[in-house]
């Protein structure tokens, strides 16, 4: 293992941040530049915290798990949506441009309100299992499920609602009401789940329009940037076929 060798010289990085705090009087969008010496294993989480601590206490950003699990720190990294906490600076050039994720309400600098957007989407698409029975007797054996199916559901359940797919989607940027890959993959997830009693006709009511599955232009932007590598395109295409059938039977 080459671990024992201490890297002698570190790169000088220039981190540029698009800054703006809509609630601060006099604040205007501007690009601010921060020079920084790169450290071993440095991530953007480490870099931004160091900048805030040592250079500029006014810088605002969001980190929670710092392990690529919670989805809080999505931002544009050199123009591309991604999770800052698990982006290593060594994989980027010496000049790094950071901007807030587009498509969401700006809180300040790199922090955006993805929570509000996601809650709105969830309410609209009713992203919960619509159970058949009101009360389940919890002391009885649970309902059985095919192990493969459980895995397939989990595959779509891995979404962390980070918002990258919205930022990477042309439709979402043009049409604020579009539920995006995050919303459509959730529909795919619940449709797959036998515990959910909803029918295709009901799903059609939720996503059978241009703000739903027919708004997708299949440009693959979402899948390219999804940090969890969800099979978004295949799932959206599948939902679209099912919804098209629905639309067809409705005439």
């Amino acid at each position, binding site marked *: 293992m080459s671990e024992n060798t201490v890297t002698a010289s570190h790169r000088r990085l220039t981190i540029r941040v698009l800054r703006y705090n809509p609630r601060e009087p006099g604040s205007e969008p501007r690009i601010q530049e921060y020079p920084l010496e790169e450290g071993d294993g440095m991530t953007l989480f480490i870099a931004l915290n160091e900048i805030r601590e040592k250079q500029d206490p006014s*810088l605002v950003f969001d980190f929670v798990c710092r392990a690529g699990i919670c989805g809080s720190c999505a931002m544009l990294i050199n123009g591309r949506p991604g999770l800052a906490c698990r982006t290593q600076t060594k994989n980027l050039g010496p000049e790094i441009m950071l901007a807030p994720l587009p498509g969401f309400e700006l809180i300040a600098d790199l922090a955006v309100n993805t929570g509000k957007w996601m809650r709105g989407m969830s309410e609209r698409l009713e992203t919960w299992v619509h*159970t058949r029975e009101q009360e389940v007797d919890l002391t009885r054996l649970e309902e059985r499920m095919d192990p493969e199916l459980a895995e397939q559901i989990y595959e779509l*359940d*891995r979404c962390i609602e980070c918002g990258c797919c919205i930022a990477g989607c042309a439709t979402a940027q043009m049409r604020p009401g579009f539920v995006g890959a995050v919303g459509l993959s959730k529909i795919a997830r619940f449709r797959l789940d036998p515990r959910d009693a909803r029918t295709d006709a009901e799903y059609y009511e939720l996503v059978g329009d241009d703000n739903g599955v027919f708004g997708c232009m299949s440009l693959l932007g979402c899948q390219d940037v999804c940090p969890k590598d969800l099979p978004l395109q295949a799932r959206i295409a599948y939902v679209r076929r099912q919804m098209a059938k629905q639309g067809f039977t409705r005439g």
Partner: protein
Amino acid sequence: MKVIYSDVLVIGGGLAGLRVAIGARQRGLDPIILSLVPPKRSHSAAAQGGMQASLANVTRGIGDNEDVHFADTVRGSDWGADQEVVRMFVHAAPQAARELAAWGVPWSRVRPGDREIVANGQRVTITERAEAAGLIAQRDFGGTKKWRTCYVSDGTGHAMLSTMGDRAIAHAIPVHERKEALALVHDGSRCYGAVVRDLTTGELSAYVARATVVATGGAGRLYGVTTNAVICEGMGHALALETGVAPLGNMEAVQFHPTAIVPTGILVTEGCRGDGGLLRDVDGHRFMPDYEPEKKELASRDVVSRRMEEHIRKGKGVKGRFGTHLWLDITLLGRQHIEHNLREVKEICEYFLGIDPAEQWIPVRPAQHYTMGGVRTNHTGESPWLKGLFAAGEAACWDMHGFNRLGGNSVAETVVAGMIVSEFVADFCQRPENRVDVPMGLVDDFVRREQGKLDLLLEGRGSESADALRSAMLHVMTEKVGIFRTGADLAAGVEELQGLLVRSRHIGLRHKAPGANLELVVAYRTQKMLKLALATAYGALQRTESRGAHFREDYPQRDDRQWLSRTLAFWRGEDDTLPTLEYEPLDIKRMELPPGWRGYGAKDYIDHPDTAKRAAEVERVRNEMAGADRFAVQQALMPWEGMLPPRFRGRNERVGEGRA
């Protein structure tokens, strides 16, 4: 002054808070949830490994039930747990797992037939039963006799939280995100809600409620290297402590997880070892069997972490670029297994270490992981010192973990406590005498006081740096209040922390914006965290024994004679620099499982004079009732059923056993 009313104010939108709010809603109440972050970003999402519930569906779980789960949990706690609460918990845990199944959690399921597993470094074939096909599967975890940990691949917490979060939305429960509770409103005997800061605008408002529930998670960020999220700063612990009347229990009980990656402290799940992964040293030698011949890598966390540090002290650590570490080897599990069941682990290895865990060993070292200490409550989840204040989840000391919690028992606690405590909260709210008139003058005073503190930070003439004080605190906690503790280090640590606390009263800020201002947040949280750090360090200094995760090199034995008690830390005066400690004895005469050897770790301990008597009594009851069903025996030893809300009392069915 903005005042927001609700029946139940739930502070925290993790698994525990969400489940409490849902329970309250199901009982017809109006809850409001406050959260620093969108609920699904709470740290519950990070739990990879799984949730313990004695469903006994898999072959290696056959024979598991509440009794076995109870004994594992009490042993794990090193007899620090409240055994009645543990009973309530183990009984309701299967119901909580099944409730989540009904709500949509895609639990991994039993595949009938033969499969190959890795156990003790060997490949062996086990056969899953046909009659269990499609039921919730369990995996092996440390400190358990049976395979009991239900899981969703290695994204258990994420899947649970996402389902729970959506359930709260289905119930139209309002979640006020990016809001931080700064102080509880109380008059010394009754809690009326909280003063809350909007993290975007900086505005303060009062949230007034009949019942207030602290479900704010852990305090891992008291330490320099922790697996916890950056928001796990113990702010709910501080809410209770700063009332001056509601104490924290067992703050010195801090769990260190064996396998955090070096240097970031990001966790790789215990599931890695549960599934057959091994720990190796600088020579590639598998060292755990040398220390723990019985449980090996799967002894409880406190034991494995200490053994690892012990081994490093013997010079067997690997000196890496980022410091000394040991190796976690999961290569023997095979790529197929890693890519299916340990995907998060694989991602973490790729992104944060740049390695492929199917080919390379993972550099690991123990790091702070879990806060056993918390807001001390009784079995209903209420603080006996402050009426109307409840706590649940990691922020609570309910107390089912004692001095060491078992892997998988924590997410289980969040949902089980959520179920149980929400019933008691609803009972509380529905009792007519608890519909009190809120003293608005008091509310106003509290809001002004909090505003005053913030103004002092923003406009005062302090010159201390919040960041510098924070790093100094992290250093003290890591160096002096860590895995191995001594009286001398702890005393020095306490003194240093006291100095930092005094200095923290003179913090000055460079950035004066009242709204989104991370420096301001660091400042006021550091002031509170120093009090928690002192409660931890001072509690550790006073406790001259070793129990569970609390290990004193100068007092290596567990001392039941003097220390079979729970530490209570009060912060009585605002200007104090030390907590006031009191102790709550644990009554051996009522224990179903009297103190003994845990089955791993050190075998020598100092017995309490009551232990032998109680052990004989338990033995006698068991003999007299030989042949009686296990429920009858259990009830004769330690009745607890009356404590559980009636709706959870039914007997749990298991495949092939019915409700026996």
